[in-house]
């Protein structure tokens, strides 16, 4: 029987409040370090939440024209940096002109991000002609010299998992030789902090930023926004085997469903969130008893975390106590459209370093969220199968299964 080659992650580019690149971010995750600090670059005095996981965007990498790079919007700069790092990390940069390199990028609110930045800096782009502006994916293709198909996908906070799932299909269908996939978001802005704050979704623990995000904790009071993202280089395994390159993990399966319930609130029964996890496991041919680690979506909101815990009980049944569970949003903040991507990175961290990043600030686990928590300190444990859940406004449910490769 001819089996399709599996799809491997062979390169990672990432930016987060914990640092730049896979190694630095992994180190922060495993150390239980918080990236949450008071917002520094705009006035938040009147905001209900005044803390976030902001990033310092890196200067122009030597591979790029510094003048062109410095002119980019912050979101574009984040995207270009992550894509470049992923290609460099995979060892494909030098050969990129010979390959069909696709790009599937999760971007939850690209134009809103640009309008926001422009308005804060005195511009009025939002009311003027749009000529002269181009989509971020085109900018990436131009600056990195990519010649495959490209797409941006928006599924709110589930955008990154959708992007990785679609990229996996592009490779399986032989549409591309390599696919860059992931998501970036620069959502720490006055307007988004105001909108989420007014929704009462953000923590008000402004006086203790590093203790503010408390997924699954009985004293949680909301999420804290973060910035950054992660982009992965995906390839068919048969293109990687036989040379000296390595794979971080196999993208084993993806599940994507919709609640069709409400544009903000999740379905309290979590029927279709559970279906997304089951689809991903089925797609990956993984039994619930084989899951080692679940990176939960858990943002730290009272309703959402309990809802996800109930859903995991429903999916895992008698095996619910087996997989270790953590929410790395406790350290990075909620990266919104890029959350799934940075959490896929956390799964790669667990697989590569045989240690599971913790949920920090989990001092008093909520009895409504009984799971096998990795609380406050990383747990040394081999991880063969990791599941990353991401859900979003609009009822988007996604789950990704990542498997260790030999």
């Amino acid at each position, binding site marked *: 029987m001819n089996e399709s080659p599996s799809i491997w992650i062979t390169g990672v580019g990432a930016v987060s409040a914990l640092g730049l690149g896979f190694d630095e971010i992994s180190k922060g995750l495993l150390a239980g370090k918080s990236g949450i600090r008071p917002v520094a670059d705009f006035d938040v005095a009147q905001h209900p939440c005044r803390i976030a996981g902001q990033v310092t965007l890196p200067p122009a990498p030597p591979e790029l024209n510094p003048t062109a790079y410095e002119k980019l919007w912050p979101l574009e700069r984040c995207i270009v940096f992550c894509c470049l790092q992923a290609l460099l990390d995979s060892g494909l940069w030098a050969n990129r002109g010979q390959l069909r390199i696709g790009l599937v990028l999760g971007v*939850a*609110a690209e134009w809103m991000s640009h309008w926001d930045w422009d308005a804060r800096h005195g511009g009025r782009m939002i009311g003027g002609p749009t000529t002269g502006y181009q989509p971020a994916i085109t*900018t990436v293709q131009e600056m990195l010299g990519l010649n495959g198909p490209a*797409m941006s996908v928006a599924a709110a906070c589930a955008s990154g998992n959708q992007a990785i799932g*679609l990229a996996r299909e592009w490779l399986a269908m032989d549409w591309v030789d390599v696919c860059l996939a992931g998501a970036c978001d620069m959502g720490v802005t006055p307007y988004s902090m105001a909108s989420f704050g007014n929704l009462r979704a953000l923590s008000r623990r402004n006086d203790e930023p590093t203790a503010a995000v408390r997924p699954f904790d009985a004293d949680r009071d909301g999420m804290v926004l973060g910035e950054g993202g992660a982009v992965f280089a995906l390839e068919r395994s048969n293109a990687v085997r036989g040379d000296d390159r390595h794979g971080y993990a196999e993208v084993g399966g993806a599940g994507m*469903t919709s609640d069709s319930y409400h544009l903000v609130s999740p379905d309290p029964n979590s029927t279709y969130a559970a279906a997304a996890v089951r689809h991903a496991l089925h797609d990956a041919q993984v039994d619930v008893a084989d899951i080692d680690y679940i990176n939960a979506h858990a943002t730290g909101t009272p309703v959402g975390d309990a809802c996800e815990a109930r859903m995991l009980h429903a999916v895992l049944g008698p095996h619910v106590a087996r997989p270790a569970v953590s929410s790395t949003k406790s350290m990075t903040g909620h990266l919104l459209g890029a959350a799934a991507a940075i959490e896929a990175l956390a799964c790669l961290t667990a697989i590569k370093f045989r240690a599971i990043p913790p949920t920090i600030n989990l001092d008093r686990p909520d009895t409504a969220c009984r799971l096998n928590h990795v609380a406050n300190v990383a747990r040394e444990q081999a991880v063969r199968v990791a599941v990353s859940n991401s859900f979003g406004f609009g009822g988007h449910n996604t789950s990704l299964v990542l498997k260790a490769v030999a």
Partner: protein
Amino acid sequence: MQQAVLPGRGAGAQELTIAALGSVNLTVPELAAIRQQSVPRFCERLKPQLLKHSDEQTLAAIAALAQAIEQMPPCQAADRFANWGVVSATRYLGRTAFATVIDRYKVDGPWGVSVQVIPHTSPHAVASTLGMALDSHGPCAGAGGAPGEETQVVLAAASLLRRRAVSGMWMIFSGWRYPAQGATQTADAEPVCLAAALAVVDTSTPRADDLGTIGRIHIQPCSARATTTAGKPTHDLIHWLTGRDRRSPTAQRIALGSMSVEIELHANSPNGNGAAVFVPQFAGNNPLGQPAFAATR
């Protein structure tokens, strides 16, 4: 009609059947009427309280979707679209609402910012709202978000149909057509919101025959070095689908990347004034980031 020339079908080629196409061109008063009363088909699931916050492109997409469903064979099953997904391409969705946010923030500070802006005007909002209308539980997402990015919806729908986890996909296109400078009191002097809704299924599934066919979509990967002749942009996909720009030529090509996509509507399609083919031809790096068309006759 001259058939568009495509590379030979090979690995990675995919064909989708277009089962229905609905399209609308709505003026501002017509959009206001939908906001106030919803549309009959969806009035139970999309109530005015919800639509009050929707972007105009969402309202137009709802009308196009209702029109497309009218063309499909009647079916009594309540869960008719339960296993379908929705992918939407909008053009600067939320621009008006966000301009209001910016202005109100200046005056009222953070407390002036509506909690409705993000859920209703982010790029996923059209697909999510239509998913709610249909009670669909397949994946919903936005793709692209600016003029020229519409063909990404085709790639997304084809990718999601591949594993047959969904029965079908709705592809939604929306945007505004603004009056030309100097336009006077004619029909073209008003801004019009355009929307098109296409129901597509994988041609190789039995379901494709049940639903009928008004057209096809062919997708074909090319080699990395494939090239195409690009010409002056003359048409775009949303104008073509909404019948605003279905003049000649009958075949067109766009340069975007190393993929080839052909959209063909049969002569008997509801919006067609004759068979027509739309061919976004992905080949090579496109420095403009916009589709470049080369018309053929």
